[in-house]
């Protein structure tokens, strides 16, 4: 009898809408301290979760089952959001001032990167229990996960790259690489998880670390790309995460130049530089690598340009709205979602025809994060 009752209850709870998360995503509504949950199949908003604090420069990583989104807020907030239930599972303020975070290869650890106090803090991904920390005494930028439950990041003030092996979460092991260049502002791990590249603000070039051989230190790539010319002002820092790896090439925003730099991954030489409309912020490869989409800093932040990788030139100029902050492709690349902060909208484009498929109202949207990131190294 008891068993029967239990089964009836179970049936009662479980019936309505079982579903996967593969076509879901999360959009930051940054001024509202809220996220919008979206579905890319029907291109609709399916819910909202509020109470997430200061979401300027917020970023998200996903649990390995792609059910939970970990939202890192500027105010040090770390929130675990249940995407299916559209609710906060757990939330804590883990520091005074944060910049982002990452999740470990095995999915057991979530790590927050902090400006104040500078360093990283390691949490249990299930419970958000604090496990350990690595203080740096410098602002942490460009954190990314790497194979071996490692986390790699750069130190803006100190000009270093640190590799933290968190295999034993309570006692993380640190490898420090010094003299990597002036003022690294962001960094990313290549899709294969082998290389970490940090962009430098204080000089023309990028720092490259082979994660198979951290003992070899960092080497400078694309050094002197500015050719000694006076840099143009940069009204928004470029972002390197959300890399643009298309075949053997990496597409990277130049600093202080209205160009996208193309780095050849075979010999790390400059393959091309492509003139674009303004200071690039994100350069993101469409899955498949045929095209790279670029957005820009003020005053060109109403534009998105599309680079054809074969031709190495801009082939399309779009105007998705005012203050385009981010773009994200569906996993197979047939759609791209673009946030327009000042038009309070997320526009969805067909990547083959460039036709606008949908426009979703959202309050000052910034980052767009689709659950396919759960399965990608460096995201």
């Amino acid at each position: 009898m008891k068993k029967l009752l239990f089964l009836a209850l179970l049936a009662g709870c479980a019936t309505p809408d079982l579903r996967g998360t593969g076509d879901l995503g999360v959009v930051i509504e940054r001024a509202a301290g809220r996220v919008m949950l979206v579905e890319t199949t029907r291109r609709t908003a399916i819910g909202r979760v509020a109470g997430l604090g200061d979401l300027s420069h917020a970023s998200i990583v996903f649990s390995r089952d792609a059910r939970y989104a970990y939202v890192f807020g500027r105010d040090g907030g770390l929130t675990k959001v249940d995407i299916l239930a559209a609710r906060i599972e757990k939330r804590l303020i883990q520091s005074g001032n944060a910049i982002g975070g990452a999740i470990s290869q095995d999915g057991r650890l979530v790590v927050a990167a902090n400006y104040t106090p500078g360093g990283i803090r390691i949490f249990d991904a299930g419970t958000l229990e604090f496990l350990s920390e690595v203080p740096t005494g410098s602002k942490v930028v460009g954190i990314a996960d790497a194979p071996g439950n490692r986390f790699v990041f750069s130190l803006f003030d100190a000009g270093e790259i640190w590799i933290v092996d968190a295999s034993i979460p309570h006692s993380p092991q640190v490898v420090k690489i010094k003299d990597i260049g002036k003022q690294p502002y962001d960094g990313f791990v290549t899709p294969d998880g082998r290389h970490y590249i940090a962009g430098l603000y204080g000089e023309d070039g990028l720092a490259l670390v082979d994660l198979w051989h951290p003992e070899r230190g960092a080497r400078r790539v694309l050094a002197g790309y500015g050719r000694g010319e006076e840099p143009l002002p940069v009204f928004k820092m470029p972002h390197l995460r959300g890399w643009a790896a298309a075949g053997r090439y990496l597409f990277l925003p130049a600093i202080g130049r209205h160009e996208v730099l193309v780095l050849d991954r075979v010999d790390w030489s400059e393959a091309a530089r492509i003139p674009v409309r303004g200071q690039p912020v994100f350069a993101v490869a469409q899955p498949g690598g045929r095209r790279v989409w670029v957005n820009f800093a003020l005053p060109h932040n109403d534009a998105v340009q599309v680079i054809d990788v074969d031709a190495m030139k801009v082939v399309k100029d779009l105007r998705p709205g005012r203050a385009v902050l981010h773009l994200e492709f569906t996993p197979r690349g047939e759609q791209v979602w673009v946030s327009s902060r000042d038009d309070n909208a997320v526009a969805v484009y067909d990547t083959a025809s460039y036709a606008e498929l949908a426009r979703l109202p959202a309050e000052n949207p910034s980052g767009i994060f689709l659950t396919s990131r759960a399965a990608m190294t460096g995201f």
Partner: protein
Amino acid sequence: MRRLAGSLALLASAATAAADPVPARRAELVELVRQDCGSCHGLTLKGGLGPSLEPAAMADKDAGQLEFVILHGRRGTPMPPWRGFLTEDEARWIVEALKQGLPK
């Protein structure tokens, strides 16, 4: 008559504060500071890659110097020159607003 009253009010405000931006422009400036300055200084201006712009952090800083940094940037740091977007009066107004706490 209404227009006259409006003009008088405008004159009166012009007399008190030499060249404060008009209210519509002020709203734009507040938005610019929150959103665009906020991408480095934080939406709540508590700081990020750039330092805090909260009143406490601004209190002991010279207004003229702050105005100069806004318009001309700061060498050796990512702070860019905003003179292409702002007039001197607007930069001065922003400094005053930050020192008092930026309006909501």
